[in-house]
């Protein structure tokens, strides 16, 4: 069991952070979402959300496109293929950890 628990140390910390995990969860379900939607759903402040999105973009997990809807500027976020794969790997790791640790009565 200790090996399973120690396996958590190898988890992707960029994804594992709670605010970024919410962002990944939301974006994994869609093709793209704009900043307003992410702001509403995560409950993060605008500055905090911007900071997390920038980190994910730097890591290559996220693509941010600034565009317009009519005259209104719009910031659209989309997971890259790298980001989707990283999130799938993360989910598998967590699932394995939960199954091996908690569901065996550990």
């Amino acid at each position: 069991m200790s090996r399973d628990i120690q396996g958590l140390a190898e988890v992707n910390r960029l994804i594992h952070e709670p605010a970024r995990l919410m962002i990944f969860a939301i974006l994994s379900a869609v093709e793209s979402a704009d900043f307003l939607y992410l702001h509403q759903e995560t409950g993060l402040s605008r500055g905090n959300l911007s900071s997390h999105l920038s980190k994910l973009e730097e890591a290559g997990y996220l693509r941010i496109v600034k565009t317009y809807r009519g005259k209104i500027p719009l910031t659209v976020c989309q997971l890259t293929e790298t980001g989707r794969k990283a999130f799938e790997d993360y989910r598998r790791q967590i699932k394995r950890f939960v199954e091996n640790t908690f569901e065996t009565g550990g």
Partner: protein
Amino acid sequence: MKDNINYHVQKTRQYWHIDGLAELVAGGIFLFLGAYFFALSALPPNSLLNTLLQAGFALIFIGSLLLGKRLVTAIKIRLTFPRTGFVTYRPPTTRSRWISAGLALFMAALVVALMSTAPASLEWMPAITGLIVAAGWLIFASRVGLPRFFLLAIASLAFGIGLSLSGLGDLLGLAIYYASMGFTLLLSGGLTLRSYLKQAPAPQEESDES
């Protein structure tokens, strides 16, 4: 942690239905179909118009669905996205598209075939239609996880079976079924939209943030 991820994934899937617009448009389509079947029941069976309407059912049905989706998106761009944000969903896979198209064509062909070849079966058309539509709502409800769609499935079943058992089968029964479901959808969508507009204030005139 798994539950937290699933919660956000599910909530994002539900977002398309947060404003009830899809139900309002679906309600309009059902009312249109109710008018279609009423016209069929009122027109002389061997008239040219009756024949043309029967032949065009598949086109009318599929055309309504395609136009309906475009209408919902157009209204969302003006009403929903400025309030609570813009989301695009992953396009359905090719396999999924073929399945949906196949099911729609099958239903349309079944209705036309039954109407043309087995007049007695028309008595059960409202019940059969109610069952098919209820099954669709159930599958949809279990995927999206919104309780009101389960209620719509129950309503569909109740209307369909009730009409057939009460002897109001045939085309008039179908017209009443579609009209009843249409009004039910308008009610469901209207209540949802009202609730959404109360919770989501109109957007302020400010520039995008990041």
